[in-house]
């Protein structure tokens, strides 16, 4: 038979018999149709055994037909595209689909670990807390690895996910969650009223239960009605219909998370995260059926009655040859009718109720035997259900041969999303389940709100949609509710749970049985939240959808508390499991975070630049020349070139803030530790900022361009934090000061030109456009000038310790300016240098940087105590005087060099006295920055040493056990090259 041997000859609301599809399961090639789910295609192919349970590795078949599925978890795809633990009931079948079962070895039919089931008495709930403690070392070596290997369901690929992902933001008046009758009506009502509506449905077809039931609406089959409603919605410009769209979470301020999957064969992202902000939502997620708890209720072939109806009506797939029904509600009987109508064989109907109405009895197919007040003592069969042992109200016991049992135990509304934000549920006696309450932010419609029947669903959906539209300002006339056939809603009846010797499963996926619950209660875990954590009930991929209410009933039964005083464990996002990659979107690999590139980037890339991350920026570390053996050779060359000739380095990444206004000098005096109001116009001053807590925040320069105009610089790493801090000072602390702040980091491309020939370079390049003679333009001068039509600024500042300048031009001509500079530089025998050479030179000069200004150091620690002005107050001044910050014995900045000049050491080494035994007490500080100094021919370092200032000349160990080093070093002043700074002033 096309589409599988168990495929019915006709019917099937969503399958397309004209579109056959081939797929594989555990290597078997199978047929199905477009519009099938993987689960329905397996049913159509007569496959009942689809997986193994988590703990006992029991053979399992499909329990459900939708998101509630606990058993039918398969592995999809191959290689890096593998997707483990996928609910077969939610997989849209497509040509070439590769699927396989999991958690079994060597095969699904024969699984070695099924022995676990034999040991199940030992493996009762919580057994592992009581054992595996001796001998102590065996836990990590033996027990735990064994547990870890047998736990877990599927296997991850271990390879990078090849999929593409994307994100979308969307806004609407009304978000309707779920496209069953309630959701469709809500969307129609709100859409017709003119509201902006988004309808999100996780299935690939709209209709919900309408697709699975043989209802009539407006005189047509319910699935035809839903297709018509879908067409109307698709045609409305103010309505967006999202199919394959799982709403997974409700977040603050009307934000919802939705993962929309691509249709099979669709190009573009595999999944897209929609962040939907809505004025209000309609929750119309339906209800799911409850299984019945009895011994052996997990045999493959035992299903929910609603699932059987889905397979039969929606997919025209018959799940068994001899079907029995076990029901606590009227659904069982309806299911029998549907099976019979499809030509299936119903052998028996078992109703737990002692009496049923004659109308109901009349529904039973003629051949079906009826048992009232019935219970099942055992489900039988190994890899598939073969028979059940039944007793009825009169004690009549019988074994009935059956290969499919449909269970109908009442309904559980899917109200999870209503409590993501802390909403509450209330017990409905009518349906025997807790239901969520509507709020203006989220109206509950249909079965999700306990309005189980079709008529109620349609009406409550329309009402919710209208109310939501109205709340968004779209008034509309009441909507006509279509006439429909309807369900008989059975008032819920409690049923004592089966006390059977056989395992009676409550949580199928996690193998939690009724007995486990009783045991947990005995051990004191008698409330649902404790029960969950002790037994793992409800902690599987289905989050206990089919288990939670049965568990509560059993708990109530065992403890004697009314179940209505118990609440199911809390629901949390995601409502449906969502891929990590979908949450991450396109932000991965190289594009994990955007890159900031300075204007010189292309030049650097073309000239051997090797790049490194500096905060968000990419900066050249060095420029390799052909023939250079390693990076150190390159860096040594760059340093030596700068120290002897000239080099150019892009320093645009430093943060720059333009500050102006009548009060700017007063303001900067408060922000910096040193005086800025005394900086003459045309001069630059080095400055230090403290945090309010008195530790150093950042250092940089302040250049006074005019009486009321400064431009200040920050370090690359701290640019954002300093901007935020200065804005805080301006807006919150002293709004009365008239100061404007404009970040100009991106406006100015800025290049350092350093080395004894830097003036020559500028002279060659700028000629008489600006007088840069030492007299006219001394150290720390700043001047704006016209560089051939470009507004430029020249600063005489130096990080390298050489005669040096920084030139700034608008970044839009930054690339051209860099080329000009490099042209002139190369002509003088100079070179471009990168961050590594920059670092070497600043260590040679003893300038502090990020490794020293690490948020834990004071100005005095850094040797900058003198920069704390005594003449004025400034941010951080008071708290910097706290005893521990002002203590004299704090580690202070020193220079270090190896006693044996050929020796080496590294940043992060600690200082220990020679001969000292390593201990916290003996620890005297640490090395912060280390470099090989080509100028001196040996390693040099900066570090913080206890009482450092008083210990020059001492020898101490740089102890670095994590690198296996221990080097004797000498404490020297923290300036190795030109300590007097003579070169700056030439």
């Amino acid at each position: 038979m096309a589409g599988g041997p168990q495929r019915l000859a006709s019917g099937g609301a969503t399958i397309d018999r004209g579109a056959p599809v081939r797929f594989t399961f555990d290597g078997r090639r199978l047929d199905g149709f477009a519009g099938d789910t993987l689960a329905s295609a397996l049913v159509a192919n007569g496959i009942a055994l689809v997986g193994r349970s988590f703990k006992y590795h029991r053979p399992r078949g499909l329990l459900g037909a939708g998101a509630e599925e606990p058993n039918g978890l398969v592995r999809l795809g191959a290689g890096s595209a593998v997707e483990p633990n996928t609910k077969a009931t939610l997989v849209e079948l497509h040509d070439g689909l590769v699927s396989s079962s999991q958690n079994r070895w060597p095969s699904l039919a024969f699984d070695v670990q099924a022995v676990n089931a034999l040991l199940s008495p030992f493996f009762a709930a919580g057994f592992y807390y009581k054992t595996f403690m001796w001998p102590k070392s065996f836990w990590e070596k033996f027990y735990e690895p064994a547990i870890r290997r047998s736990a877990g369901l599927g296997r991850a690929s271990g390879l990078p996910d090849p999929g593409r992902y994307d994100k979308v933001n969307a806004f609407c008046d009304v978000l309707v969650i779920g496209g069953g009758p309630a959701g469709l009506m809500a969307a129609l009502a709100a859409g017709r009223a003119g509201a902006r509506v988004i309808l999100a449905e996780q299935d690939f077809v709209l209709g919900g239960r309408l697709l699975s039931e043989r209802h009539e609406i407006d005189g047509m089959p319910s699935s035809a009605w839903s297709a018509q409603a879908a067409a109307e919605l698709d045609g409305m410009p103010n309505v967006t219909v999202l199919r394959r769209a799982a709403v997974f979470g409700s977040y603050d301020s009307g934000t919802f998370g939705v993962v929309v999957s691509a249709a099979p064969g669709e190009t573009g992202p595999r999944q897209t995260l929609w962040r939907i902000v809505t004025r209000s939502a309609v929750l119309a997620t339906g209800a799911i059926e409850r299984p019945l708890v009895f011994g052996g209720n997990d045999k493959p072939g035992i299903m929910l009655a609603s699932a059987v109806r889905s397979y039969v009506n929606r997919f025209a797939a018959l799940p068994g040859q001899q079907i029995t029904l076990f029901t606590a509600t009227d659904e069982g009987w309806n299911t029998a009718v549907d099976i019979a109508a499809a030509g299936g064989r119903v052998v028996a109907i078992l109703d737990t109720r002692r009496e049923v109405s004659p109308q109901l009895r009349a529904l039973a197919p003629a051949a079906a035997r009826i048992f009232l007040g019935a219970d099942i003592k055992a489900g039988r069969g190994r890899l598939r259900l073969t028979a059940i042992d039944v007793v009825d109200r009169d004690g009549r016991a019988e074994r009935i041969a059956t290969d499919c049992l449909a269970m109908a135990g009442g309904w559980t509304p899917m109200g999870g999303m209503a409590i993501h934000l802390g909403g509450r549920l209330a017990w409905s006696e009518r349906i025997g389940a807790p239901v969520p309450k509507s709020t203006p932010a989220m109206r509950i419609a249909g079965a999700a709100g306990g309005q189980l029947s079709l008529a109620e669903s349609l009406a409550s959906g329309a009402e919710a949609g209208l109310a939501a539209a109205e709340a968004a300002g779209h008034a509309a006339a009441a909507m006509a509710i279509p006439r429909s056939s309807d369900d008989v809603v059975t008032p819920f009846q409690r049923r004592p749970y089966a006390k059977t010797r056989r395992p009676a499963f409550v949580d199928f996926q996690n193998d939690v049985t009724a007995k486990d619950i009783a045991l947990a209660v005995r051990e004191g875990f008698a409330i649902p939240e404790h029960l969950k954590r002790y037994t793992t009930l409800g902690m599987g991929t289905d989050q206990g959808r089919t288990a939670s209410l049965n568990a509560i009933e059993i708990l109530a039964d065992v403890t004697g508390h009314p179940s209505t005083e118990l609440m199911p464990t809390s629901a949390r996002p995601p409502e449906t499991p969502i891929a990590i990659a979908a949450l991450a979107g396109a932000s991965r690999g190289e594009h994990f975070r955007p890159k900031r590139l300075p204007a010189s980037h292309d030049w650097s890339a073309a000239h051997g630049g090797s790049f490194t991350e500096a905060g968000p920026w990419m900066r050249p570390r060095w420029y390799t020349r052909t023939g250079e053996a390693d990076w150190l050779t390159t860096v040594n060359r760059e340093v030596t070139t700068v120290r002897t000739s000239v080099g150019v380095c892009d320093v645009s990444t430093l943060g720059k803030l333009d500050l102006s206004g009548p009060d700017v000098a007063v303001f900067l005096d408060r922000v910096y530790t040193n005086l800025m109001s005394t900086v003459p116009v045309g001069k630059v001053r080095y400055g230090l900022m403290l945090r309010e807590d008195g530790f150093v925040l950042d250092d940089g320069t302040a250049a006074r361009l005019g009486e009321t105009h400064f431009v200040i610089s920050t370090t690359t790493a701290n640019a954002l934090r300093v901007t935020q801090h200065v804005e805080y000072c301006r807006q919150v602390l002293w709004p009365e000061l008239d100061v404007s702040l404009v970040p100009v980091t991106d406006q100015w491309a800025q290049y350092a030109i350093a080395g004894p020939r830097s003036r020559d370079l500028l002279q060659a390049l700028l000629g008489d456009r600006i007088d840069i003679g030492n007299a006219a333009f001394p150290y720390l001068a700043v001047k704006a000038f016209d560089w051939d039509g470009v507004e430029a600024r020249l600063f005489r500042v130096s990080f390298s310790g050489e005669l040096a300048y920084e030139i700034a031009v608008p970044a839009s001509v930054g690339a051209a300016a860099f080329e000009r500079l490099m042209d002139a530089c190369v002509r003088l025998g100079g070179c471009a240098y990168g961050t590594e050479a920059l670092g070497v030179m600043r260590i040679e000069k003893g300038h502090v940087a990020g490794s020293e200004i690490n948020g834990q150091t004071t100005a005095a620690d850094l040797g900058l105590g003198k920069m704390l002005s005594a003449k004025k107050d400034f941010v951080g001044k008071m708290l910097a005087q706290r005893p521990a910050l002002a203590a004299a014995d704090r580690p202070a900045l020193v220079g270090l060099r190896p006693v044996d000049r050929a020796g080496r050491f590294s940043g992060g080494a600690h200082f220990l006295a020679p001969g000292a035994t390593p201990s916290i007490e003996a620890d005297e500080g640490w090395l912060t920055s280390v470099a090989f100094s080509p100028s001196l021919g040996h390693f040099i370092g900066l570090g913080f040493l206890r009482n450092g200032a008083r210990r020059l000349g001492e020898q101490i160990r740089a102890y670095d056990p994590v690198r296996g080093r221990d080097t004797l070093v000498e404490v020297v002043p923290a300036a190795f090259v030109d300590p007097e700074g003579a070169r700056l002033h030439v």
Partner: protein
Amino acid sequence: MSDGWTRPAPAFPAFPPRPGLAVEEIVGRSIVTVVARAGQEAALRAVVETALGVLLPEGPRRVAGQEIAFIGIGPGKWLAIGLPVAALAPLADVAAIVDQSGAYGVLSLTGAGARRLLGRAVAIDLDDAAFGAGSVATTIIEHVGVTLVRTAATPPAYELYVVRSYARSLAHWLHETMG
């Protein structure tokens, strides 16, 4: 010596046109930050009106005059678009005037596709009713700060201001998302 080097370099790579979407870089536009001095917003408004013939927008809006447009980017803060910084000298008594022409890359996006594309990207409502012509938003696209301006209603037209150093990352995102 002027070898044309004053000509600003583009910040973005080229964007081939897509159906319903044209993306072009606007190179060389003058962009100036104007910040009213404390208590001088009214005075600034008056000067702008007399000197430039434009009413400064309130809030995050764009108002365009003959040669200059103002875009609100914060309380008392605007980007003045179109005239070089020198032309804004009359404002200097009552405002800080800071040239930012080098700081930004500017894209114009036009067509129905622009609305869709940007609507996906920014977490603000771009519906006509909420973000009609003249609307401005400073916000983020994929970790990159942008100022988005709706310049025309039909066909939908936008300008996107992004600081230069991020332009290529933003371009990568655009290329990916435009498909």
